[in-house]
Structure formats: structure tokens, C-alpha cells
């Protein structure tokens, strides 16, 4: 459906950041206690997690950038 445009170190960083932030936001309740901060971080991190799962970033498409080796726009 979408041509992958996220790859390499970009993909690894996104996945790492996404997993860490969702863990801090929804699983561990000691690092962040404030609910607002947890939800905000959770939603923010979730975006990273989703883009790394699909290996597709719509904003990359908008600016014509591609960090994936499999193809270019």
C-alpha cells in the first residue's frame, strides 16, 4: 500500500524511541507520575512506534525524503 521510506539507523532509532516512550507512558508508573505527561508522551511515542512498524512516514513522503535502501521517491 505504502512504499516503505523508513529504514536503516532511522528505523532502529524510531523503534527504540517508540518502545521506550510507550513503556514509560503506559507500563512503568515510577519514572513519570503526572498523568498529563504520561499521556502526552504515550501518544507521541506511539507515532514513532507506528511509523517504525509500517516503515513508512507520511511526512517523509511530503518532503521527498527516504531513509530506506530499498527504493527512493
Amino acid at each position, binding site marked *: 500500500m505504502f512504499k516503505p521510506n523508513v529504514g536503516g539507523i532511522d528505523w532502529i532509532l524510531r523503534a527504540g524511541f517508540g518502545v521506550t516512550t510507550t513503556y514509560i507512558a503506559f507500563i512503568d508508573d515510577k519514572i*513519570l507520575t503526572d498523568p*498529563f*505527561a504520561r499521556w502526552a508522551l504515550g501518544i507521541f511515542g506511539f507515532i514513532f512506534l507506528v511509523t517504525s512498524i509500517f516503515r513508512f512516514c507520511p511526512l517523509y513522503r511530503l518532503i521527498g525524503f527516504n531513509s530506506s535502501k530499498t527504493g527512493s521517491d
Partner: protein
Amino acid sequence: MQLRNQLLSYFFILILAVISIFGWNAYYFAYDSVRRTEHGMMQSQLTHHSEMLAREYARVKTLQHLLNHLPRPESGELLNAFLVRQNDNEPIFDSAGILPKKFDGIVDRWRALDSSTQHQGNFSYGDDVYIWSRAPVPGSFYDMVVMRKSSVTQTAPLKTLYSRLAVTGLIVLWVALWVALIISTVVSRRLARQQQELVHQANHDNLTQLPNRHHTRQLLKQAIKQAKHGKATVALVIIDLDRFKEVNDALGHEVGDRLLQNIAQRFNESMWQQDKVTRMGGNEFAMILAIASEDHISRVANKVIDLSDVPFVIDGTPLSIEATLGIAVYPRDGNNADTLMRKAEVAMYSARETGQAFGYYQPENDPHSRERLHLTAELRGAAERKELLLHFQPKMNLADGKFIGVEALCRWNHPVQGLIPPNRFIPIAEQTGIIRPLTNWVLEASMRQCAQWQRDGHDITVSANLSARLLHDINLPGRVAELLKKTGFPAEMLELEITETALMIDPGIAGEVLSVLHAMGVKLSLDDFGAGYMSLSYLRQLPVNHIKIDMSFIRNMLIDPGDSMIVNTIIDLAHNLGCTVIAEGVESSEVYSALHSRGCDAVQGYYISRPLPAADFKLWLQKQERGLHPSATKGPRAL
């Protein structure tokens, strides 16, 4: 892309700076407000306790009583209170364990500050911050000090604030980065597009949108570079449109421009994909054939010629053009773009001169080739070095078989290369202007030689060739008259041979020059007749005495009925115009007899004699006068 990265890094730095200032301000605002609250609370506690101690001191005026009524430290809060003597700022502790042991160092730290003059403050000890307040116990000589560990770092609201600040800062940074990224992409794309347009404009011709001369050079350089790796050949084809100026003059520049656009479009659409069509300027186009086999080059050349043969219809008017192509090939003709461009142009000009539609580069046609430059330099001094010599070829009357005169032909005996044929050095002389002194030399030498023979008792008419350049020189008759006078040779015995093509360059001036020569008594003969394209009405006006039929017709007249018919026609035409006819290139008795029977007046050719050096010619002449057959003296067929 570089510009975008630059813009992006500026944005990034700006956003980081804004977030840092904002975060720093928010943090200190929160910190200050908590600290102020703590101090306020401490102050009210202190006031309460000092009033209570004052009451106790009024009741029992002993230090021990005061110490007994100091508030006890509450567990966990680390609130401690002690007395300080007002005159020496010495803290007084109760020995019964009011202060925990670790508190000693903290009080020492407090004493080290300028604590005697201040009422409250804070200081750090170890990893913690402590706040304190001091107030006098009314009616005594003691002050009361309360001190506790600040809870600023543990305050829940502050912690909440920090976490919110961190998370929102992160999100703001992320959003701002994307905004920056998008803005910088849009800006850099627009700039790149503008730059691309500028580059395109600089490299392309406005009218046809084809690469211009400058860009052609670059493209050619690239093609050569690529060809070097693959050991391939690259061909540059220069296309000159011969009749374009007429269109411009007759129909205006607007039509000319549209014609150029149509031509460019037709060329561009019909060519093979890997071949690049460019415009060199004016009415000159070019093609770069990146992988150029001989086959492909000639296919392209023929295609261009076919394409230009089909008329272009502009505003309902069919316009036809003629293309002349010059081809230079890497690596054969040169290994850089400039050389190929120059050589393709040379090839184009020489193709046009010889009336061909296209031609490859040939070093002998190039006025700037090394060999030609050498020859040109050497040719200049050839006459002085006595390297030039004359050969004489006799002409014979067909009616009585008698010798009637000679044609003087120039030869160059080069010290290294030996005898150089005229077709190699005459074009050089014509292009460089050496033809003028050269013709002078030929005329003078031949007249001098014939005058000598005349004195020896042989009446010989001599003919010499006149080049196109000299035919348009109005000083020529004067110079000829001078030479006649100098050598004492009679004008009636001199014959000048001119070609049709030379005459047609500027018939007005040529006609004038010829009339003056004719008036002087010099005979004129029209050389290579039939090979050019002269108007008959012009021919009728010319004061010509002889017409020489081009040898190409004579050679094949017995096999080719067309040539035979032309020979007949020229003979009739010449006779009708009152001229005598001389056939050149007669090589056999059959041709000799055939010409005789057709009424030709005179012949010249190997059958009579090849061109001979002066001494040999004299021998030939003597034999001739003794009545020997001309063919007996036929020499080898070398010029």
C-alpha cells in the same frame, strides 16, 4: 539538499535556544515560589516559638529553662531549633540529644556563613539544601534559630512541572523540527528550481530550446570522457543550413525563427534517442553521436539530409532548405571537444566547397592541419629557392595534326617530399593568398621560356591557369601587361585559362577583368567546360576565344552515350559562339579519331604527350617538326 540541511540546522539551533530559555524561566519561577512558601512557613513557626520562649524566660530566667522549652525535632521533617548567644554568635546546644550527630557539621557550615547579620537564608551541605531563619527571644540575650532541609527537590508539584516541561518540550521540539524541515524543503526546492531554470537558460538556446554552443562543448566533453572508458567513438556532426539566409531576407526574421524552430523540432524528434541535437548558433546545428559506428554516422547523415529535403510549411508557404554536414570523429580526428568542433566545421566547409551534402574531416582540406601549415610555410619561399618548375603539355590541331601551343603547368619539387602534385599545393596557395605571387611566377617563367623558344625559331602560344581569386583582381591586367613588357612576349601568344566556377563567383568584376585582358590582345579560354553551371547568356557576352571540354566527358565519351552527347553539344555550342574547341584528357587514338570526326578543333592529353619539363619538351618539339607520330613520345603516366 545542502541548502536544506543548512536551513534545518539553523532552525534546530533556534528551537533549542527558545526551549532552553523557556524551560529555564519556568523552572526558576517554580523553584522561587516553593522556596518563598517554605521561608514563609518557617518564619511563622519561628515567631510562634520565640514568643513562647519569651514568656517562659519571663517566668524562669535561666538558660537551662530556655533550652528545655525549645521545640523538639519532629521526626522526618528535620526541623531543628537552637539558641545563639547574641554577643558572640555562639550556638548553644542542649547536651541531651536535641541535635542528631550529623547536624553538627550543618551548624558548622551555617556558622561559616555571615549568619550574625542576617535573619534568614539557605545554604547547601552535601547533596541537600538547608533553609534557616533567626529571631531574637525578647527579654533575653539569645536568638532563636530554626533550620530544616529544604523540600524543593522533593516537592510533588515541582516534579510534575518538570515532567510536563520535559514531555511538552520534546513534543514542541519535534513539531518545530518538522515545521522547519517542511519550510526548508519548500524554500530549497523553489531555489533549486530557480537555479535549474537559470542553468537551463545559460545552456540552452532560447528559440529552439536545444543546447547552445557552450553546452554542446560540455556535452561533447562528457561524451568523450565516457568514450575514453569504453574505448568507443564519438562523432560530432555539424549541420549548416545553406538556404536559410534567403528565407530570412525574403520573408523576415520572424518566419526565419519559426523555420528554425520547426527544423529543431524535426531533427530532435526524428533522431535516435542516444544522439543529441544542439544548436551552435545562427543557422548551424550540431549532433553528438555518443556511440558512433561508421554505419550509424552515415545513417544519421542521410537521415538529416532526407529530413531537410522535405519542405517546411510555414503560414502555408513551403520553404526548402539545404543542409551541408561536416563530420569529425573522436579519437580519429582529435581527442578534445574544441578540436572536434573545429574539425567538423572544416569538414562542413570543404563538403560545401566540393558540392557534397556531407563530408568527413580530411586533414588535407584543413587549412590549419599541421601538414598544411608546414606546406604553407614552405610554399612561400618555394619560388626563391627555385623549387618551383614548369611543365609544358602540348596541344594539337585535329585538322592537320600540327602542334599549336602548350599549357604551362606548375610543379613543386619539394626537397623532402619530392614532386608535389598541384592538387595538393594549389588549394593551399588559393586559401592563403600565395596564389598571387605563384601565378605571377608561372606567367613570368612561362613567358620567358616561350620567348626564348621563339628566339630559337619556334612560335609557341602558351596558356596558363588563372585562379578565381586573381580573376577578381582588377589590377591583374596591369600586372600582365608589365610582365609582357618585361619578357618581350607578344600578348596575342598568351592565353589565360579560367574556369566557369571561378567566373560565377562575381560575374561583374570577372567580366570587367576579362574585357581589359581581351582588349590587350590576350586570348582567353574557358577551362573544364561543362562541369560547372554557367549561364549561357553570360557566356555569350564573354570575350572568350577557346572552350576546353572537361576531361570527365572525354574520358567516357566512347562508352557513355550521355557523355558523348554532351561532347557533341559543347562542340556545336562553342562553334556557334565563334569559339574553337579543345578536348582535354585525350588518351587513346580511338578518342582522338572520334573527336576528329565530330569536328573538335584541338586536343590535349597523354595521347599527344604528358606534361614535359622544358628540356624534354624541346626534344619532343624537334621530333614533332621532323614529322614523328605524337604517340611515339608518350611518356609514363605520372604527373
